[in-house]
């Protein structure tokens, strides 16, 4: 259950006006079949995303956190129609992404963009920066050739590169941080509304990270962007997000404003995740509520609450029933039976 009631506009980080719902994800499910043998018989399923609902509002940054393999990327890629969901709906400005007309789909392919973690792997090594960034505007026929070129030069300059020099170079000639800027310029070139940032700063050095984070925040204000910011670094997510979703084994377990989530985490998984923030200082790895045990397999996820096998507060019903979202107030929702009697 997602709190989509907060549709009235509110102000957030750096005075942005957060508007109405832009993207609404409803009961999204994605199972990947596991095939075996010559006949590619389906022998099981990876339940990568299992009944996930949330909304992203105009000009809002929603963070998505969780351990590796919990389904964050799968959620992001489904939003871009890069993979077909097993079931569920994704509404973009009230239109269902999965039964959009060809022309709507074209429009969505422009409005919704993605920035990847590995900017090298996602940039064609045989294309110059100019053609990488220029490809989108050409495909989407955004204005005249001259206008397209002008837009490309503008975004290349805007991400801190020099169009006159860098346009003619190839991705391998750039550092990691610069390649990430190219990825951002490519996304920006088609004048998008919504960008999925999938671990967009995770591979960068701390000092470069801040540069890219600041760039993303400035661009958001300049171009009225909304972001789904997927990351495993909780400090980065706290800094950049208005709201944060916590995912565990294919499900959202908690959702709250960034401040609420970090100041007042309610779900035992969120608490463990926040406590497990690695301390750079080896002298002090004290006994925290560290996550113990392995993440169970998404092929055979535990019944009931998926976290019950690792939960320090587990109760009898947790292994039987799937906890619904319990509202705590101000859009803070925890999917945990501990909230039931409060």
């Amino acid at each position, binding site marked *: 259950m997602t709190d989509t009631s907060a549709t009235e506009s509110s102000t957030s980080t750096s*005075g942005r006006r957060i508007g109405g719902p832009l993207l609404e994800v409803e009961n999204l499910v994605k199972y990947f079949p596991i095939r075996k043998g010559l006949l590619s018989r389906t022998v099981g399923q990876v339940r990568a995303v299992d009944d996930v609902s949330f909304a992203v509002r105009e000009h809002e940054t929603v963070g998505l956190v969780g351990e590796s393999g919990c389904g964050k990327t799968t959620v992001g890629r489904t939003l871009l129609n890069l993979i077909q969901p097993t079931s569920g709906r994704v509404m973009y400005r009230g239109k269902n992404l999965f039964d959009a007309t060809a022309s709507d789909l074209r429009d969505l392919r422009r409005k919704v963009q993605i920035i990847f973690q590995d900017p090298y792997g996602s940039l064609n090594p045989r294309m110059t920066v100019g053609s990488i960034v220029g490809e989108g505007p050409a495909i989407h026929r955004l204005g005249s050739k001259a206008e397209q070129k002008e837009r490309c030069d503008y975004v290349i300059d805007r991400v801190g590169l020099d169009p006159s020099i860098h346009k003619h170079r190839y991705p391998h000639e750039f550092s990691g941080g610069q390649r990430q800027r190219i990825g951002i310029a490519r996304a920006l070139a088609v004048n998008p509304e919504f960008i999925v940032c999938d671990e967009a700063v995770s591979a960068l050095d701390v*000092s470069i990270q801040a540069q890219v*984070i600041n760039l993303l925040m400035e661009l958001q204000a300049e171009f009225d962007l909304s972001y789904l910011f997927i990351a495993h670094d909780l400090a980065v997510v706290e*800094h950049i997000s208005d709201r944060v979703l916590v995912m565990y084994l294919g499900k959202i377990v908690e959702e709250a404003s960034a401040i609420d989530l970090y100041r007042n985490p309610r779900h035992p998984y969120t608490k463990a995740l926040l406590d497990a923030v690695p301390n750079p200082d080896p002298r002090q790895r004290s006994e925290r509520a560290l996550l113990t045990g392995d993440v169970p397999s998404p092929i055979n996820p535990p019944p009931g609450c998926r976290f019950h096998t690792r939960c320090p507060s587990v109760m009898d019903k947790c292994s039987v029933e799937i906890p619904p979202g319990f509202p705590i107030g101000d859009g803070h929702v925890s999917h945990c039976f501990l909230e039931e009697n409060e």
Partner: protein
Amino acid sequence: MIPGDSKVPHSRPTIVPGSVEAVTSVIESGQHAGGHVRRLFETELCLRVGARHGIAVQSGSAALHLALLALQVSPGAYVVIPTYACMAVLNAVTACGAHPVLADVDPATLNPTSNTIQRAIEREGLAARDVRVIVVPHMIGSPSPIPDIRELGIPIVEDCAMALGAELRDEEVGAWGVVSVFSFYATKMISTGQGGMVITSDEEIAARCRDLIQYDNREAWGGTTWNYPLTDLACALGRAQLPAVDAFLARRRLIASAYDDFARRRSVETVSFQPDAVPNHFRFVLLCDDRDGTQHLLERDGIETKPPVYRSLHRYVGGQPDDFPGAELADRRALSLPIYPSLSDHEVARVIESLGRAL
């Protein structure tokens, strides 16, 4: 002093590689106060301490002043501060036209406690709800008992001027208060010459801070604003040091453990820490029976030491010594030894040797 040995200063900034280049590139960019490097410095410290907004300003004093203004500390308001703190803390309160309410400190930790704060409020004939803000410094980089102090229900400004890198309950300091402030004065954990930062995760407070330090291009005059932003030159110097903070902490810890060994061997009293805290060892403080005599003997060996606080604040404003027994003791007994990353092993040995003769 052995001939050939130079003086061991009480503080010395640590220059990290890349500092000169970082500052030079800002000078050459021609953008000395455009704010680009400032915003990076702000984001980087936010990521370190876990907060949403940073506002870099020209000193820790300016940061404190700005924090109080942003919390709408108005003339006549009551603000609790510890008496065992530097004058900057008092100045920030009086600059707002507010009344300082001085709290005593625990002479063992040099920090205020919820008890000393409670007593200060009662002494003034006030109740907790009459107090607008409590400024809680982590003296000498040793975290104050903020979780207890929070129970009083009064907004806290966490003064981390000395405490960058210290931890309380497994969390780095800097995000325990509604607002936190840092100093980057030349003797602090990292130096920008003069400098400071306000850190907060509260959107409104952050917006107010940004507004309060912006004086140009305004449609109307809406009250005094302050030209406090830190220059990009200074921020470049600060940014260069941030990645080295963990190494700084490690070196300080090593020196502190050498001093600790000595103190234990010789049964010399030292400042104690909260059990749930990890100090950053910004200062190593002895509690001596004859503080001035010890200081004098060390001075003769070329070793500069200082009381951590020049003089408790109640002594400036006519407070009764009886009301501040903890601070009175600290004023008489506390002596801070040289401790900083660039202090060499040889210098550490000299300090210990000299202490051995003095005590």
